[in-house]
């Protein structure tokens, strides 16, 4: 619940952002960049820009509450519509990446912690040390070079599907799921092939911190008094490692996973740019570079809301996993 005030903070922040942004907001909402002075003045009145700032803030909050985020110059559509169209692409990418990252990082961390000082442990630590050093955009580009240019295994790194495949009827917006629902296995394979490299790029970026925290907390857990107790009464290896050590070790990983998810939302901007992925982040970025600020605000707000939802989920998960915490 503590993240709700943060959402409010972001609302005010984006509002101020709009005030501070170079240029007159009224100009952006005018019919075109060449609109006359009178037209802008009218729009200024319509938008209430002549009112005092607190009242403008209230109006802004009211608009946001109604889902009105303004209009995009680039697309000519309302920002809400644009974001809604593009969000599934971003979510599909981020969630796949998170899935890959968790699935590889947690076992790696556990294995390393079980044999500290062994070759496996050193390997994992090296991987962690290197993993946090490689910028996402560089690893993404190098993956393209290797898998697309050199090996020819990956498809052209642009977009969610190739030009020959037609889109499935949109149900969830997640292409891999929509193709499956439509029973189109070829299409599904196309979508998966497009998804793998960007998802991998993003996953590589967060495997290191996840594996590192898993290893560290597993080491703490394995060295704790209660694991010693478990061993002193002769519990089986599996019981000791999984039921006693791992379940306790996973608690900090849950918290970190929330932070990692946020980082990934940020990294989305870079990955979507590298792979021309038609998600919300590349939309916001394009808008930002062409001085179209309403989509940027909308994007920041959307990120903030996702972040609140994720935090809420993390709190709930943590509450379920740890009896010492009451939700």
């Amino acid at each position, binding site marked *: 619940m503590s993240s709700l005030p943060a959402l409010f903070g972001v609302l005010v922040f984006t509002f101020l952002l709009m005030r501070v942004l170079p240029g007159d907001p009224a100009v952006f909402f005018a019919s075109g960049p060449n609109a006359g002075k009178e037209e802008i003045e009218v729009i200024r009145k319509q938008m209430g820009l002549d009112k005092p700032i607190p009242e403008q803030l209230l109006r802004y909050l009211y608009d946001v509450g109604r889902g009105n985020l303004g209009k995009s110059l680039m697309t000519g559509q309302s920002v809400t519509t644009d974001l809604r169209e593009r969000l599934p692409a971003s979510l599909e990418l981020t969630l796949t990446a998170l899935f890959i990252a968790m699935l590889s990082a947690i076992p790696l961390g556990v294995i390393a912690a079980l044999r500290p000082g062994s070759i496996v442990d050193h390997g994992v630590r090296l991987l962690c040390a290197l993993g946090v050093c490689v910028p996402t955009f560089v690893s993404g580009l190098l993956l393209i070079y290797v898998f697309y240019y050199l090996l020819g295994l990956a498809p052209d790194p642009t977009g969610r599907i190739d030009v020959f495949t037609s889109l499935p009827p949109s149900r969830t917006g997640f292409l891999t799921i929509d193709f499956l629902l439509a029973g189109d296995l070829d299409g599904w394979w196309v979508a998966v092939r497009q998804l793998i490299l960007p998802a991998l790029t993003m996953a590589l970026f967060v495997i290191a911190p996840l594996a590192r925290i898993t290893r560290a907390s597993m080491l703490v857990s394995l060295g704790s008094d*209660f694991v010693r*107790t478990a061993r*002193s*009464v*002769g519990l089986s290896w599996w019981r000791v490692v999984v039921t006693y050590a791992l379940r306790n070790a996973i608690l900090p990983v849950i918290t970190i996973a929330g932070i990692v998810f946020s980082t990934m939302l940020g990294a989305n901007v870079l990955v979507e740019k590298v792979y021309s992925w038609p998600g919300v982040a590349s939309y916001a970025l394009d808008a930002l570079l062409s001085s179209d600020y309403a989509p940027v605000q909308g994007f920041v707000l959307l990120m903030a809301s996702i972040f609140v939802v994720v935090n809420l989920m993390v709190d709930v998960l943590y509450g379920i996993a*740890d009896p010492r915490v009451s939700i």
Partner: protein
Amino acid sequence: MTEPLLRIEDLHVTFSTRSGPVEAVRGVTLSVAPGEMLGLVGESGSGKSVTGFATTRLLDPAGRVSSGRILYRGQDITKIPDGDFRALHGAAMSMIFQNPRAALNPIRSVGLQIADAILSHKRMSKQAAADEALKLLRAVQIRDPEKRMSAYPHELSGGMCQRVMIAVAISCNPMLLIADEPTTGLDVTTQKVVMDLLAGIAAARGMATILITHDLGLAAQYCARVVVMEKGRLVEEAPPARLFHHPQHAYTKRLVAASPTASSRIEDLVTDEERGQYLAVLAACKPQPEPPAGTPPLLDVRNLAKRYDQGAPAVSNFSMTMKAGESVGLVGESGSGKTTTSRMICRLIDASEGEILFDGESIAHLPAREFHRSPHRKDIQIVFQDPNESLNPRFTAFDCIAHPLLRLSRMRPGDALRQRVEECAARVGLPIDLLSRFPHQLSGGQKARVGIARAIACRPRLLVLDEPTAALDVSVQAVVLQLLDRLRREDCLALLFVSHDLNVVRMMCDRTIVLRSGEIVEAGESRALFDNPQTEYTRELVEAVPQVDRCGFSVQS
């Protein structure tokens, strides 16, 4: 003698550390008969716990048995491969640990944890294991066992957790139980209950027990035979009566002397040879003249109270007086408010209400935030509990002692300061050459001396001692107590001695105040109060202290 259940022969345990291998146990030989309770006593670093952990093969990965044999029912268990040892864990031997709350899995209900232990050795359904666990909770006398089955460790008190730990340990009827400092950190009344329970269960089940402890009195009260260890070696083995009255080894003699009992005096804390020295020091102290009549008491505390935002007040209606040069003990169990009271009197925190008069002058009106400017700041000083934490890690011993002189006596760095610091160091018996060392280069006892030297540097008139010896070994404690008593006599220094150790307070203090839940239960002249407690609570406290003299060695040897 029947065949021993456990026999340890010439055990050596080595730890590999950064600075090479370190031998923690060097040739220990001992045996335990079935059903016997053996005490394994020693100070920190004596290797007593390591011996226990080596026996149950729970040493941490850096340590290993480098030579010697451990025979359990005639079989050398050091040769058993790790995988097979699991069958022995819990079923043949199990352990109870210090800090019971940490020893239980924080996110698993205690019922399940007991059932886990049962299921690891017996084939039965989960329901049957749960029933068994419930029986065990009853056996360890936990109230409302049905309810407690689903409780988590953080919902139970320390004493309760230790009972659960006992239930886990005995769940598969081991023949041998090794209890490693099972009651250290528990309040004295809880300690007695848990120890009685443990002894009762061991006797009822015919379980042999090794009680590892630093407390000679505790071992003497519960064990038929006590083994004393020092620096990884076994120095003496005897029934407690003989150990106390005719210790043979020089180390045992010192240990026995240093362990305070109900009747010991401060000069008794060292062996006979060293006692004369201390008595000479005492004789050299001139008796302080009685202050003229009508002098206000040094410290007069009236109706002091401390309330925090939520919960019951930490301290309420606390009043006391102290004369110059007097020593007063403040005793109570954890949560009794004794620490809060001491901080208020030191003016480190503000009281919610009440009056503190020092020399008849009110000092409570100045908020604690501003008290560092008060002229009385240097009159009231404090010695903290854990010497490891009471010195700034970035200060040398010299800096630590010099700091109050610079701040409160307005001295400037230079020869005068150096001379004064060295004088303080000499008074507390700290060698001058140690002054340039950092805290981590000093031993616990040396750190305690630096802490005392710092407190007396500005010649305070009231010294508050917050459990000054709780973190020290008894032999070090003895020296520190003698030092404090000497300083009191030499400087006419009033001591407010905050402690949970009744034997120490009885010995050190003219008067004693017993606190419970922030209120004074009883106050009076120490000997009278301890010999003839007026309230039920004080009587309970006094009786819970393991007393070598009183127990009369009723345990059959």
